[in-house]
């Protein structure tokens, strides 16, 4: 009985659907097609829509995931290209900065009365005991020991004889080296002294009389009395003045030149003239 009931349900549904199908085959919709056609078309349209959506999803999945293999290669290629462009950009920027520095150096060259030669700093000191750098000019360019080396900001140092300059390189002792020294004076009061390297970073001005007018903030320039450095070039700025022993006071100076960032320098290949009196940079022509 129960099995019979279970069979009746589908039979009834099938019979009713069959009648409805018959009806729909004969009845036209407002559009002129039969309801059956409209239903079939609608159902088929839904199937098409579902199939289309599925195909679209598969296509999207293909494009977004499977095809990523190609994208990855392209990504790597583009990344490499970006790296190349960034390197090129960096080079261009470096060249621009170098050109700017050289322009400044050229301007300074015009201020130096003696003949000068531009050089590049190509190496630092191999030890931590001395403060020296190597420049790209040597004997072949006329470089000799005790020639002054300048930067746009001021005095850098001098060419040393040990080791002697090679054909295309020379060693320069920086002003901050412990054994470096330069004749200097305070720009405002014209009080003279000797500037020496203090601790490899700062400078110290010695032999400054206790009677001299020295103030923190005063600029210290080269006096030219040492016969090496041309007169009137900045050395640094006074940061401390202390009373020393005896007749002298101790003056501490912050260098005008950032020695760790010097890249291009001018080597004064012509010895400065013997000091005859006060002079300022820019007097006379350059070599």
């Amino acid at each position, binding site marked *: 009985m129960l099995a019979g009931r279970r069979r*009746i349900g589908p039979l*009834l549904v099938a*019979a*009713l659907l*069959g*009648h409805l199908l*018959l*009806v729909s085959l*004969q*009845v036209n919709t407002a559009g002129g097609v039969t309801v059956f056609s409209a239903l079939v078309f609608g159902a088929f349209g839904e199937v098409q829509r579902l199939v289309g959506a599925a195909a679209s999803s598969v296509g999207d999945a293909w494009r977004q995931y499977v095809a990523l293999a190609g994208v990855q290669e392209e990504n790597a290629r583009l990344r490499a290209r970006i790296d190349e462009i960034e390197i090129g950009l960096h080079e261009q920027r470096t060249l621009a900065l170098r050109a700017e520095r050289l322009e400044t150096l050229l301007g300074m060259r015009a201020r130096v009365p003696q003949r000068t030669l531009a050089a590049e700093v190509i190496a630092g000191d191999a030890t931590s005991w001395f403060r020296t750098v190597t420049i790209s000019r040597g004997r072949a360019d006329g470089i000799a020991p005790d020639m002054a080396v300048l930067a746009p900001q001021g005095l850098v140092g001098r060419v040393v004889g040990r080791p002697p300059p090679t054909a295309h390189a020379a060693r320069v002792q920086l002003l901050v080296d412990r054994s470096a020294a330069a004749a200097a004076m305070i720009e405002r009061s014209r009080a003279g002294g000797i500037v020496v390297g203090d601790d490899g970073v700062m400078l110290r001005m010695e032999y400054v009389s206790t009677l001299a007018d020295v103030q923190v903030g005063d600029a210290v320039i080269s006096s030219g009395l040492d016969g090496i450095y041309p007169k009137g070039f900045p050395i640094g700025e006074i940061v401390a003045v202390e009373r020393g022993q005896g007749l002298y006071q101790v003056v501490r100076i912050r260098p005008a030149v950032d020695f760790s960032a010097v890249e291009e320098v001018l080597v004064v290949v012509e010895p400065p003239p013997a000091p005859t009196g006060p002079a300022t940079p820019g007097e006379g022509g350059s070599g």
Partner: protein
Amino acid sequence: MYALRTAVALGIALALQALLAHAMGNRSVIDLVTVTVIYFALGAGPAAGILIGSAAGLAQDVLSGGVVGVNGFASCLVAFAAGAIGSQFIVANTLPRFVVFVAGSALQATCVIGLYALITPLGFGVAPARVAAQALFNGVVGVLAFQVVERAPRMIERRRLRRAHVRGRLSG
């Protein structure tokens, strides 16, 4: 045998309905086919009722020139319901039978009118009073049909016995 009788009865009902409709025009308020469907479905059960109703309805549709399937759908549904009722309940008295015929007829008419209302813009245009009247008349006809079918053999037997008795007295 039951199927054959059903088929014959349905054929006769269709023919009579056609004659009745022709004779009474649009005023006919009896659906003999529906009465026949309900009658046989009550005795045959729901499964057979589905087949009986479908066949009768489709025949009605084909002969009437309407949309084939509308009466089939309605009669199928009515015959299934009648068959289910006949198999679940004892429908032996006059009143239950009458109710089943009336309800089945009303359901059949409602289905037909409803389907036509769905598939044609103007609907079927049949007043509910006519539906009710047809249901009532169908109920009466159905009950009468049961009475006739159930009592006719006994009446015929009694009549045969009476004739035999009269013939015996005349000869004796």
